């Protein structure tokens, strides 16, 4: 009988070059930035037929992003399947679980599961990624099988890992945020073995808010995204589109000037074409606006809060992926971006010193086993 103990891992190294603005390190200098590295190692085993124990440690460097190199527990779960039949699978995970959010979130740091080097930043933004990464709590999942498709339902309750990245991304004044019990729900339908995938994900991520400048300014920050996902998989190509509606709210402040809401929206369309089993071409258009009532950011700018273009981003990108073997992969990708809505503040001194239109060229090699 084969041992059910398994160890897997991945690593990646990128070179990033930009003409303006810095993304993951000093990418705008002549030699570019090598400050995008990912290392992951996981282990899993099945102590009983209906129990899976799995954990993964992630160490990552992404420019000025807060937790550089610090190994973190990416997930650590005990997964128990109460029911495992032909028509239905019902189980739960206790521990730190990856948030089922959109198509890519659960494996967002694993190069082999991404369509390109970067995920669409409008929805899978890296600059405040801790908001959506994983939760400490419990999640219940259910699979309902029909004659030609499967419905997946997953709901979870837990404390999110809201870190400094979310603080600086929310405001340059870096308010202190602490995760509070949050909820997430995903319903996915996979038709005909995943030829067509349709999904809805919704979350309510809560954290306490405490201004560092004004100690009496205390309240709650709520991030409430809803994502609609659609994907078609053919033998040679895949077409993926996702739309996200993001409700952001500051509430429960004694001083009413802090209480505010902003509804943003993001969407992308992505085409992957497999030229051969080893070569893949990617084309994507990705767009985000931080506030639907101020699409061009003009009100934001007139209030003196920052440049108008920091409130939107339109990213046209194309890339190529070469799988040297089932383990090694080399990729190149070019982005032409109008706006800086997802540009990491961690890498750029101030919003004012950024440039509205910028180009980015990325190369990445990765290995997984």
């Amino acid at each position, binding site marked *: 009988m084969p041992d059910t103990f398994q160890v897997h891992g991945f690593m990646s190294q990128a070179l990033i070059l930009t003409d303006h603005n810095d993304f993951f390190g000093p990418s705008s200098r002549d030699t570019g930035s090598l400050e995008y590295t990912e290392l992951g190692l*996981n282990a899993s085993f099945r102590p009983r*037929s209906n129990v899976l124990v799995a954990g993964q440690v992630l160490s990552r460097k992404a420019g000025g992003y807060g937790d550089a190199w610090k190994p973190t527990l990416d*997930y650590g779960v005990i997964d128990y399947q109460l029911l495992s039949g032909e028509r239905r699978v019902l189980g739960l995970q206790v521990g730190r679980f990856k948030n089922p959010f959109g198509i890519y979130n659960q494996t967002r740091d694993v190069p082999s599961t991404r369509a390109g080097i970067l995920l669409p930043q409008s929805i899978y933004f890296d600059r405040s990624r801790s908001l959506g990464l994983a939760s400490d709590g419990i999640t219940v999942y259910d699979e309902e099988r029909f004659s030609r498709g*499967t419905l997946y339902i997953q709901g979870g309750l837990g404390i999110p890992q809201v870190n400094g990245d979310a603080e600086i991304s929310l405001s340059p004044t870096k308010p202190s945020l602490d995760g509070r019990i949050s909820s997430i729900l995903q319903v996915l339908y996979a038709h005909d073995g995943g030829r067509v995938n349709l999904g809805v994900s919704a979350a309510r991520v809560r954290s306490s808010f405490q201004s560092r400048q004004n100690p009496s300014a205390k309240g709650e920050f709520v991030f409430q995204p809803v994502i*609609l996902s659609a994907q078609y998989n053919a033998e040679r190509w895949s077409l993926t589109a996702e739309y996200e509606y993001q409700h952001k709210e500051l509430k429960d402040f004694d001083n009413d000037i802090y209480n505010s809401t902003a509804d943003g929206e993001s969407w992308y369309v992505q085409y992957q074409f497999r030229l051969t089993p080893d070569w893949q071409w990617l084309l994507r258009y990705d767009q985000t606006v931080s506030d*639907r009532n101020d699409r061009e950011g003009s009100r934001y700018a007139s209030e003196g809060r920052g440049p108008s273009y920091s409130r939107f981003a339109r990213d046209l990108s194309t890339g190529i992926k070469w799988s040297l073997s089932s383990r090694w992969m080399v990729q190149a990708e070019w982005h032409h971006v109008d706006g800086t809505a997802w540009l990491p503040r961690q890498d750029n001194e101030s919003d004012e010193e950024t440039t509205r239109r910028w180009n980015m060229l990325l190369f990445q090699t990765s290995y997984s086993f």
Partner: protein
Amino acid sequence: MRQPLIACICLVAALLFTVKSRGDDPMVVLIANPSVIQSSLSLETVRAIFAMRQRTLADGQAIHVFVLPDGDPLHEAFAKKILGVYPHQLRLAWDRAVFSGTGQAPNEVATAAEMVKAVATTPGGIGYAYRSELTNQVRVIDID
């Protein structure tokens, strides 16, 4: 914004109505260790087993999945003609399971002969084989 929403809805409608059915290949069969009592499994269950989402059979027995490398013609035939999915979809499903803490990777063997042997000697073992290379040490499972 209305345009992307309408575009999404049209895309979804178009995709749902494109029908392509799975063709059976009598040359390739689903095989299991004799400890597996089921004589048939539904297609969605078999897809879940090979996507590494089904860990036990209905009677509680742990499943051990065996596969050949991605480019192997038998693997490709089994994936495309029996499961009705492409090898790249299976590979992605395994990576997603392995790196999100929701499942494990299948056991990879190098040749079709090794596959039959591994399934024959592993209780709960499930794999696939050319009908012509079957031995009496494995059972053929029908797919409903």
